[in-house]
Every structure is written in structure tokens, then in C-alpha cells.
């Protein structure tokens, strides 16, 4: 305990520099220029890299599709998502590097962003990569069997549209890279917690313009979780390697949590339209899928894996022979998608298993009957699906019957009945999942048309490699082609090897560091897609077998007996027929080192075996696009009961049962650990975790206060059950099992919620806020005296359409001054200085164009910004439009608004409408308060305007508020408003889902300096 060796723990060379990354606050923008001079002038800063340096020294990363969608380690010319790396500051330590990062000034030209994949495929959508001609990079249609005929003949059809959200299973340890450019041989030596697949190693080497042998990648012995995410450290490996080359010093970078949540990784969000041709009894004769998979700003290798990883298994656990599928790959202004545990499975099963539940509802059948009528019959394994997967083994009926048995189903039904009798909201869900293990490295080539595949040559297989060494005194050590993330690989491998050699597992030394210059590896190396049990474990088994066979031959010669008579056990090697005739394992094995003369004729001295395991079942796609996407196919059946709290709308999982068939279990304790972990992450996707962006593309989930990872308190007990139908395709009979609940749990809970509420659409994650919107119905009308505070579409000003933003609102102030005085104040730079909260200086750039240095914030939170403000559409003394931007280290804002002045006796009514888009760090971490903060600052601007116009700008200081608070959600500055400027209608904000508009840019700068 506490003795792990993680990347950040590794000693680094004296003189190692530290990097800090400058990231885009914009979802989509052109980079006009980057001014690095202030950062470079800071003592301790050694270098600043920008996209242009990266473009000069490296090549874009290879992508799966032949499309002009270049991506470098830093943004070149254009940024395509919030958090995209724009510059790297390299300094003596991380503190100075971050100080330097704050001094980098990037001039952006904002572009419209597109967030929703359904919008991104439209002809008029903003295009992320103009050279590609559009955002939809790939559309492939697949047909297996005769789906059209089946639909034409069907009794009826049942259809559904589902959307799988963006989420990411955040590892405890973020990315770490230490890169060292070795001038001696012009190579790179990099330590990083990369997880594989090592098919990305050539991608990195190509980008660095070196042969693979000149990029030595070393993976430490421990990694604090990965769940797929640590593939995405690879652009930073290249970036730090370049930084080391430029500075001549080793460069270390440790990703922080904000960077991680902004830009590390996400699963693709997917919109699926699914339709089934169904017979009266619920039997499905055909399926149609339309998958729109959203990969964010770039298509990073090996994307779009999630869209094809499940391809052969698209029909799940069901014997459905007709299938039509359209797969579409789209880009939007979000962080690039990559590997996340489950990898395409959660998206597929959300559609398929929700559909099965809908079939039961629409045909008024028992959902279990619908499942059972469609299951692949027991006894038909190995079973070839219509899309080409070869399911190795299984008995789905037995698994389900076992799960339902022992009163488990009866108990759930009784709980539901009892709850409903008491008027409580309770539902039951089921999910049936086929879980792939060890991906066919050729599956992704299914995205290419058959003719193209033929031209390029076949891609297939999945190679696993393990080396077992026995040293001169007989101690055994093992290295393997995997990366450690905490799964217990060392325990499992030592157990497998010990079984062969008859020694104690504790005596085996397992070194799972990986060094691309010294260890065995192939492109399939790494830890992902449940490849350990069907892959590396098998290679370990084979290598140990070979050692055993060789030691048996040595022993037979020394013990004067036959090889078949040799037995291994209790640390000894001996004759079965005469157990006294034997010797310690170490003594026999040592012969291979000490006494080559005693070796059997056919054997070389030395005792080291590397085994390569490459199962023949992993064939390339056929000409008909059939693909066996994985080697093993486990089975999961889940059922659960959930109750929804009628007050809070929170979903409570009342009972959860998860049945697994993962073939032969190598180590039951480790298996349970994996299943528990996947269950928690499945629960997270069902109820808690989502990476969200507002409509302008600002990331809203930059801390763990917004991105909600369930803690121990949120995780219910789960009852795990197993049956074992060993895989005939792996010598150990074992299958992958670590992703099943990521696939089954979200949809099982969604099905239970659908049952509880009798609804068709269940949005994930199922948050109380969302359920409330579905269930609560119309809100009681506000009392007459408070009508003004209520959002009401009728109050929307006529011009509101012109003013848009993620945060919108309006308000008014009545000021004892005539419109002309207010007008003059608004157009005078010196008055503006007094009006703009926190303003240090205003400079008139041209007529009606001002630049201001401001310090804005709420309470103690404050940032320095440069504000750029335009006034336009001036109607003297009556109306003006304002627009502008704010930018600074905390982020950026763009806004637009309209101000109107109406004289009323000796007063003027100032009306304002605004729309603001806030982006960057402050939007990512201020999720709870950002809207309100913008509202407050804007309100303060107008109150100051009123004071300045009446000559009272130095009026009352912000002091103690009145004891009675303003009744409505009104201005903070009410105490300052004094008698001259009385807020009549509180500034109001429209709900984001409401038809929104109204915004003012400068207003944003209004982040007022109030303390």
C-alpha cells in the first residue's frame, strides 16, 4: 500500500522543465495572432510553442478516414473546441509556466459553433474543417439479409429515437508526460502513462518525423486508472517531445483536472433512430439503425472506433437475420471523442434494449417474453450473426432463468406491486447484452468500402505477446504487452504461470512496465477492449507452457525418465512414477544457464520464451462487410427495480441483479472487481455524468462540482451472479468481462424509469431536473402581484429575435435624468469609464468603438479582461445596439444587446435586452453561478449608467444591504441605486430552454468589480 510507482513519482533528470498549456476559450475561432512576448519576458520561462512551431517541426496525426481534417499537437490556424491546446509555455517549474500561460495573448476571430450533431449535418451548419466540405465525414450503409422484405411483411413496426450523451470515466490520475530529446542519436525518450493501443505509436512517430525506433516510449509500472482515457495522452507526447527538442531539456507536463475535464476525452454522443419489424408475439424479424455518431472537433485515431467496434454484434443477444444500418460520422465543436470504457456498446444497447422494452409496451407483452422469443437458441453456438460476428459460446436462456430464479424476479414484482399500491413511483427494467472481448484490429476497416479494403490489403487479428524468463537460480519473471491501470493483471498472470510451473504465484516476479525499445509489443498492445483475458492471459499461458515443456525435457534427461512422466508441483519437478526422483524447480531450470552440456539435444541453453497468440477467428471483413469484430462474446443479463422520489424526482435503485457469463473465470475476485467498477460507471452514465456544452459551445462541466462522479454514497448494492460457458476459442476458456455493465446498466435503469413513469423517452443521464420537466406538468401560475417576475413569452420584446446568447435577459432602470444626458454619458469614453464596472481605462479606437481594461467579477472572484465594445444602430436619444467581446486569462465573453431610452416626465426609462456567451475557464468552473453573475454585472452597468447620467457616480458605496431583500431575483446593486435610479423590473433571465435572445456584448464585460 502506498508503494506504487506512478508516472509523476518517477525521478526526472536535473534541469527538467515543466509545461503549461494555453487553451482555447472559444468553441470555434480563427487564430489571428499569438503574442508570446510578455510570457517570454517572464524570468524562468524558457520557450513558448505555438501551432506554427508545431506545424514547422511535425506532421499532422494520421487519421482513419482519408479526409482533409488535419490535427496537430497544437491548434493550427483555427480552434475547434473549448479547451483545445493553443500554446505551450515551458518554464523552470509549473507555477512559472502557468504565470507565463496567463501572459499569452491570443487574438481570436470567433466563428459560429455547432454543438448538436443533428444541426451539424445540415447544409447551412458552420463547417469545422472547410477542406472536408462539411461536417459529415463518412456515411456507410450496410444491409444483411433482407430487411426491406422483412419490414414489408411485418405485422407491425416499432421505432424509437435515443440519444446517448457525452461522458467520460475520469481516472484518478490525469495524463503525465516526461519527454527527452536525445541529441546524440536524434531520438526521443518519453515516459508517459499511455494505455495503448500501440497502433498509435506509429501515429506519434510519423508526426514527429522519426522512424518508430527513434520514439522510445516507456510506460510506468502503475497507472491510476484509465478506462480508455489514457490513449488520449498521445498528442501531448508529441507536444512535449517537440518542446524538449526546442529547449534541449527534458520537459515534463502533468495534466490538471480542469484540463482533463475540458479536453482529455469523451465518448462520442450518438443519436440513433432504431426500428424493428415485429410479429404479433414480439418476435423481431428485422432491425434498422440510423447512427449519427458525434466525434467532436477532430477525428483522432483510432476513431470512429465506437461506431464499428460492435458492428458484428449489432443484433445483440438476438437471433435476428435481417439488418439494415446507416453509420454516419459527424464533427461538432466539442472535445474530440476517443476511447471510453464500453466503447460503442453503451450507445448500441441504449437503442436496442430500449426498443425491446418499447416492443413489449406497444404490443402489451411481458418484456421478458419479448426478450426470450428473440434470444439466440442455446445449442446453436458457435453462432454467426448476420453481420458476421462469431459468438463463441453461451446459454442465454440458462443465464436469464438463473438470474430470475431463487425468487429474485418474484421479489422485484412484489416490490413494485407494494410500492404502486401505496402510490409510490416504481418500475422494473431488464437489459440483455452481448459483451465483446478482444477487438479484431481489422474491424475499423469495415468503414471503408470493400473495393478500397481490397486495394489496401487486409487488416485483421489481434496479437498478444508475453515473455516468461527463468533465471539462473530458477526464479521466474514475466513481461507482457499490456499497460497497467489497476486491474490486477500481475496477480492473474502469476497465477496462470504458476499453474503451469508448479510454483507459488508469490514467487513470480511480474514487471508490467512497457518499453517500446526493449519489450515485445505489437499494434494491439495495451489494455483496452477487454483483451486481457482472451489475449494476454492466453499468451502468458502459452509461454509458461513452453517453459514447462522445456524444463520437462531437461528434467527427463537428468532424472532418467520420459518427458511424459515429468510432473510439476510444490516447487519441484519430479517423476510421476517415482516422486522421490526429482529436484527443486530452480535446480532443474538452472541447468539451462549453468550446464549447457546437460541440455537435451533439441534445446538451446537459456530459459526464456516469448509466446505470440493470434487467434484465427479474427478474420478481415468479407466482401459483404461481414466482420467478426471480437474474439469472445460474453453475456450479461441485468434487472433492477427503481423508485422515483415524488418530491425530488431522484431515482433510487432499489434492487439490482447482474448475471454474467464470461466463460471460465481466471480469478473470481478480480472479475468481481471489474464488474463492480463497470456497474458504477454504468450507473454514472444512467444518473449522473454528462459533459455538457451550452449552445455557444462553452463547456459547462469543468470541475467535479459540475461533472458528477457518483461516490460510495450514491452506489447501491449489486448482486452478481455467474454461469460459465467456456469459450472454445481461447485455451483458458475465458472471455472479457470488464465492460458489460457499462453497456447494460444505463439502459437497464432507463427501462426501469420508463416502466415507472410509463414514458417513451428517457433522457440520459436521468437527472431529477429532467424528470421533473417530464413529470411535473404545468407550473402553478404566479400570483398577480408577481407576474412581472415570471418568465412569459408574451413579454419578449419585439426585437428579441435579433439578440441571442446562451445567457439572455433584460431589465430596466428608471433614472431621474433626461434621455439626452444618458445618451451623452453612453457615448462619452470618460463617462464610460465610470459606468463600466471595474474599468481602469477606456480608449476610443474609432467612432463608437471603444477598448477598455477592466477588472470584473462577483465577490472575491475577479479577472482582468480587455473589453472591445461597438455601438451601432444609433437612434439619437432613443436606442442603440451594443456588441463586443471580453477576453482575459479567465476566459472570454461575447455579447450583444440593445438599450432603449424613453423619457417619462423628468425621468428616463432605460430598457435593456442582452444575450451573452461566456466561454473558457470561467464558464467551465462557474457552472452554478455564471448565469447569475453575468446578470448581476449587466444590471450593475445600467445602474451605474443611471448614476453617472444624474451626476451621482460617486454616490453610495456598496454597504450593508437593507434588512429586507428585494422581493424578486433582483439586482445586487440595489443598495447603490439610491433614490435616483430605482430598478423597476428586476433584471431577468430567460431559461436556457426558452426561446432565447437578447444580449449585449459589452454587457458581459460588465462582470462588475463589486466587492
Amino acid at each position, binding site marked *: 500500500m502506498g508503494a506504487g510507482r506512478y508516472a509523476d513519482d518517477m525521478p526526472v533528470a536535473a534541469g527538467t522543465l515543466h509545461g503549461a498549456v494555453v487553451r482555447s476559450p472559444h468553441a470555434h475561432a480563427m487564430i489571428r495572432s499569438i503574442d508570446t512576448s510578455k510570457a517570454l519576458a517572464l524570468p524562468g520561462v524558457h520557450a513558448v510553442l505555438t501551432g506554427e512551431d508545431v506545424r514547422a517541426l511535425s506532421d499532422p496525426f494520421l487519421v482513419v478516414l482519408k479526409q482533409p481534417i488535419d490535427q496537430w499537437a497544437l491548434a493550427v490556424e483555427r480552434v475547434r473546441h473549448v479547451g483545445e491546446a493553443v500554446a505551450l509555455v515551458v518554464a523552470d517549474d*509549473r507555477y512559472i509556466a502557468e504565470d507565463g500561460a496567463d501572459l499569452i495573448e491570443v487574438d481570436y476571430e470567433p466563428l459560429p459553433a455547432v454543438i448538436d450533431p443533428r444541426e451539424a449535418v445540415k447544409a447551412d451548419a458552420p463547417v469545422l474543417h472547410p477542406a472536408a466540405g462539411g461536417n459529415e465525414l463518412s456515411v456507410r450503409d450496410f444491409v444483411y439479409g433482407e430487411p426491406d422484405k422483412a419490414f414489408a411483411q411485418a405485422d407491425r413496426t416499432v421505432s424509437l429515437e435515443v440519444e446517448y450523451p457525452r461522458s467520460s470515466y475520469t481516472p484518478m490520475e490525469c495524463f503525465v508526460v516526461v519527454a527527452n530529446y536525445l541529441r546524440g542519436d536524434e531520438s526521443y525518450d518519453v515516459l508517459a502513462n499511455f494505455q495503448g493501443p500501440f497502433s498509435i505509436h506509429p501515429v506519434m512517430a510519423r508526426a514527429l518525423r522519426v522512424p518508430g525506433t527513434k520514439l522510445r516510449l516507456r510506460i510506468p509500472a502503475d497507472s491510476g486508472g484509465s478506462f480508455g482515457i489514457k490513449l488520449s495522452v498521445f498528442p501531448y507526447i508529441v507536444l512535449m517531445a517537440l518542446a524538449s527538442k526546442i529547449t534541449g531539456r527534458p520537459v515534463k507536463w502533468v495534466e490538471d483536472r480542469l484540463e482533463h475535464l475540458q479536453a482529455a476525452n469523451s465518448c462520442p454522443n450518438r443519436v440513433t433512430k432504431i426500428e424493428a419489424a415485429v410479429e404479433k408475439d414480439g418476435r423481431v424479424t428485422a432491425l434498422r439503425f440510423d447512427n449519427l455518431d458525434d466525434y467532436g472537433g477532430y477525428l483522432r485515431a483510432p476513431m470512429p472506433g465506437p461506431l464499428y467496434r460492435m458492428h458484428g454484434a449489432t443484433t445483440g443477444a438476438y437471433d435476428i437475420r435481417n439488418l439494415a444500418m446507416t453509420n454516419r460520422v459527424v464533427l461538432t465543436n466539442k472535445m474530440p471523442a476517443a476511447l471510453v470504457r464500453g466503447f460503442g456498446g453503451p450507445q448500441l444497447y441504449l437503442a436496442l434494449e430500449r426498443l425491446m422494452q418499447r416492443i413489449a409496451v406497444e404490443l402489451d407483452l411481458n418484456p421478458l417474453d419479448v426478450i426470450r422469443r428473440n434470444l439466440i437458441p442455446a445449442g446453436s453456438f458457435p453462432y454467426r450473426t448476420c453481420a458476421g460476428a462469431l459468438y463463441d459460446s453461451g446459454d442465454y436462456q440458462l443465464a436469464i432463468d438463473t438470474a430470475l430464479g431463487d425468487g429474485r424476479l418474484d421479489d422485484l414484482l412484489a416490490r413494485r406491486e407494494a410500492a404502486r399500491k401505496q402510490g409510490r413511483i416504481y418500475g422494473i427494467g431488464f437489459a440483455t447484452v452481448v459483451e465483446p472481448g478482444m477487438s479484431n484490429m481489422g474491424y475499423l476497416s469495415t468503414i471503408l468500402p470493400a473495393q478500397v479494403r481490397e486495394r489496401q490489403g487486409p487488416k485483421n487479428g489481434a496479437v498478444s505477446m508475453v515473455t516468461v524468463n527463468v533465471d539462473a537460480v530458477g526464479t521466474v519473471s514475466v513481461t507482457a504487452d499490456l499497460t497497467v491501470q489497476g486491474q490486477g493483471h500481475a496477480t492473474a498472470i502469476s497465477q496462470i504461470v504458476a499453474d503451469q510451473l508448479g510454483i507459488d504465484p508469490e514467487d513470480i516476479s511480474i514487471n508490467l512496465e512497457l518499453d517500446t525499445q526493449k519489450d515485445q509489443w505489437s499494434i494491439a498492445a495495451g489494455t483496452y477492449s477487454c483483451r486481457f483475458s482472451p489475449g494476454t492471459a492466453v499468451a502468458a499461458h502459452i509461454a509458461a507452457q513452453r517453459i514447462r515443456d522445456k524444463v520437462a525435457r531437461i528434467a527427463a534427461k537428468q532424472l532418467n525418465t520420459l518427458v511424459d512422466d515429468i510432473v510439476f508441483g510444490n516447487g519441484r519437478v519430479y517423476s510421476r512414477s517415482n516422486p522421490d526422483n526429482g529436484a527443486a524447480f530452480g535446480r532443474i531450470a538452472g541447468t539451462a544457464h549453468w550446464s549447457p552440456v546437460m541440455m537435451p539435444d533439441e534445446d538451446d541453453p537459456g530459459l526464456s520464451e516469448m509466446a505470440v497468440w493470434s487467434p484465427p477467428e479474427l478474420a478481415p471483413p468479407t466482401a459483404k462487410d461481414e466482420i467478426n469484430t471480437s474474439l469472445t462474446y460474453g453475456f450479461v443479463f441485468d434487472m433492477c427495480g427503481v423508485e422515483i422520489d415524488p418530491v425530488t424526482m431522484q431515482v433510487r435503485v432499489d434492487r439490482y441483479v447482474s448475471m454474467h457469463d464470461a466463460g471460465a473465470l481466471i480469478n473470481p475476485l478480480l472479475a468481481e472487481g471489474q464488474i463492480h467498477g463497470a456497474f458504477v460507471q454504468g450507473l454514472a452514465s444512467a444518473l449522473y455524468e454528462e459533459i455538457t456544452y451550452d449552445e455557444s459551445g462553452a463547456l459547462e462541466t469543468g470541475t467535479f462540482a459540475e461533472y458528477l462522479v457518483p461516490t460510495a*454514497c450514491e452506489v447501491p448494492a449489486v448482486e452478481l451472479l455467474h454461469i460459465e460457458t467456456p469459450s472454445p476459442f481461447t485455451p483458458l476458456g475465458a472471455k472479457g468481462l470488464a465492460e458489460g455493465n457499462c453497456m447494460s446498466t444505463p439502459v437497464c435503469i432507463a427501462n426501469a424509469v420508463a416502466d415507472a413513469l410509463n414514458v417513451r423517452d428517457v433522457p440520459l443521464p436521468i437527472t*431529477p*431536473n429532467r424528470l421533473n420537466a417530464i413529470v411535473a406538468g404545468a407550473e402553478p401560475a*404566479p400570483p398577480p402581484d408577481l407576474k412581472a417576475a415570471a418568465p412569459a413569452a408574451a413579454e419578449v420584446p419585439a426585437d428579441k429575435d435579433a439578440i441571442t446568447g446562451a445567457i439572455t435577459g433584460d431589465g430596466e432602470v428608471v433614472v431621474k435624468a433626461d434621455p439626452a444626458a444618458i445618451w451623452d454619458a453612453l457615448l462619452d469614453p470618460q463617462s464610460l469609464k465610470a459606468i463600466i464596472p471595474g474599468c481602469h481605462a477606456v480608449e476610443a479606437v474609432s467612432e463608437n468603438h471603444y477598448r477598455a481594461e477592466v477588472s470584473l467579477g462577483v*465577490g*472575491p472572484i*475577479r479577472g482582468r479582461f480587455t473589453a472591445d465594445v461597438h455601438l451601432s444602430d444609433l437612434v439619437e436619444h432613443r436606442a442603440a445596439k451594443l456588441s463586443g467581446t471580453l477576453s482575459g486569462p479567465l476566459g472570454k465573453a461575447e455579447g450583444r444587446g440593445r438599450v432603449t431610452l424613453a423619457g417619462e416626465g423628468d425621468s428616463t426609462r432605460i430598457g435593456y435586452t442582452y444575450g451573452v456567451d461566456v466561454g473558457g475557464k470561467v464558464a467551465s468552473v462557474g457552472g452554478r453561478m455564471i448565469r447569475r453573475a453575468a446578470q448581476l454585472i449587466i444590471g450593475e452597468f445600467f445602474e451605474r449608467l443611471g448614476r453617472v447620467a444624474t451626476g451621482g457616480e460617486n454616490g453610495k458605496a456598496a454597504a450593508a444591504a437593507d434588512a429586507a431583500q428585494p422581493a424578486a431575483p433582483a439586482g445586487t446593486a440595489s443598495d447603490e441605486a439610491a433614490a435616483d435610479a430605482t430598478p423597476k423590473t428586476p433584471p431577468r433571465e430567460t*431559461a436556457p430552454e426558452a426561446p432565447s435572445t437578447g444580449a449585449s456584448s459589452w454587457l458581459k464585460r460588465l462582470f462588475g468589480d463589486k466587492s
Partner: protein
Amino acid sequence: MKPAPFTYLRPDSVGEAVAALSAHGGDARVLAGGQSLMAMLNLRLVEPSVLVDISRLEELRTIRLEGNMIEVGAAVTQAELLAWPELDEQAPFIARALPWVGHFQTRNRGTVCGSIAHADPSSELPLSLTLLGGEVVLRSASGERRLTAAQFQTGMLQTGRRADELITAVRFPAGVGANGAAFREVARRHGDFAIVSVGAVASGGGSVRIGVGGVTDTPRCIEIGAELSSVDVVERIGHLAWELGGYDDVHASARYRRDLVRRIAPKLIGEVRACSA
């Protein structure tokens, strides 16, 4: 995620701390438990040039009954107050609300006064201060003053503390809620910031004082008189929900917040009435 450079001061007395604030004013921030401040520093959301650490000032590490007031010093952690043997008897409402402040681990460092000083709209302790009618004790070179909750918490993250003032203690009236106290909070996860928190105490003569946090910039309290029927209560709370309005954030809409107020507050009022009856 490293803070910008700052000077760290650890005065040995309240006098020195106050002197430091007099000298540095608005450029200084006071560090007590650091459970909000350290995160904001690391995110560079705040960049003070001076940090005045009062966490080890023994003179501020006291909880005492003074007349009918409970005085909690500025270095007292939330865990220490929770462990105060007289808490249940003297401040039954705080005894109910305090376990909802953050997590076990954060309560070991986070201070009672720090939470109030931070003035987060959804925090439990500012709600307690408002509901119980407590006061904040501030000291500066020019003397001491006391602010009521409404005087102190002026807005979201905004307070009436002047830049040269140190919060030395917070004072709660003892015994409030002895005849009935209830607290309920809705958050996405255990320990999260409240989406809505509602507190209620019996306030004498059959009245119930009810407070709502998390819905608008500052906690809000109203009196529910004994004469109101349960139907009246529902109507009054319905009105309150619209008065508060509520705000949207990444977890909850204003509508959901109002719905929670409508569903929870009448129940709590009923519970407190039942206790005090």
C-alpha cells in the same frame, strides 16, 4: 492549476491579523480552513497578493455560550462545532444542518465562519445564520462591529465585510428551535452544493420561521403564523416560490427549484408545528 504568486502571512494574534488587513486591505484574503479559497486560488479565480492565515490562532478557536448567544470563533472548524457537546440542546437546527455541509473530510478543515464569509447562495451555514437571527462579529483597527445576517450577506458571494475587517466570530441565539427544528436539502449527490435547502424552526407563539437557500442570491426567511391553515401555508409557500424566482444552473432549472420549495417547505412547516404543538 497552481495559484498566482502571493505573500503568505501567519500572524500570531488577532491584533496582528487585523493589522495585516489594515495594511493590505482589498489585496488580502483571509485563509481559515481554505475549503473554498484554496480551490479558487488554484483555479486563479482569485489572485490576492497577500494571504492572511488565521487557522492557528488559538484565541479564535473557541465555542462559548455568552448570555443567550453561542459564539463560534473564526478558527473553529465545522467538525469541531458538530462535536460540541451542547450543540443539540443549544442549537438543534445547526445540529441538523451542519452534517450537510460538504463532506466529513472537508468539515475537518472548513470553518464555520469561513463558510459564512464565503456567502455561497446554497450554503447551509449562511441559511442557519439568517434563519436563527445570528450576527457576524467583525474587527478592524478602528474597532468591532456586529452585522445581522441580512446586513452581512448582501448578495451572491458578496458581504458587508469591509476590506480591513476580520471576521472574528459568528454568534447564534441559543435555544432557537428547541421546540421544533427541521432541515432538508436536495442535491445531486451526498455532500454537493444544495440545489435547494430548506430550514424551519419554531419561533414562538405557534409561529414557524422558514428559510430557503440555494434558490436566489442569499438565503430568504419568512414567518408562518400560527393562524395559517395548511391550505394557507401551501398558498403562502407558492407565493414565496415565485418571490424567490430562482436561477438556472447546470444542475437545475429555476422551475425545478421553485417546485422543490413548493413541495418541501410545507412539509417542514408541518413537521415543526407537530413538534411544537
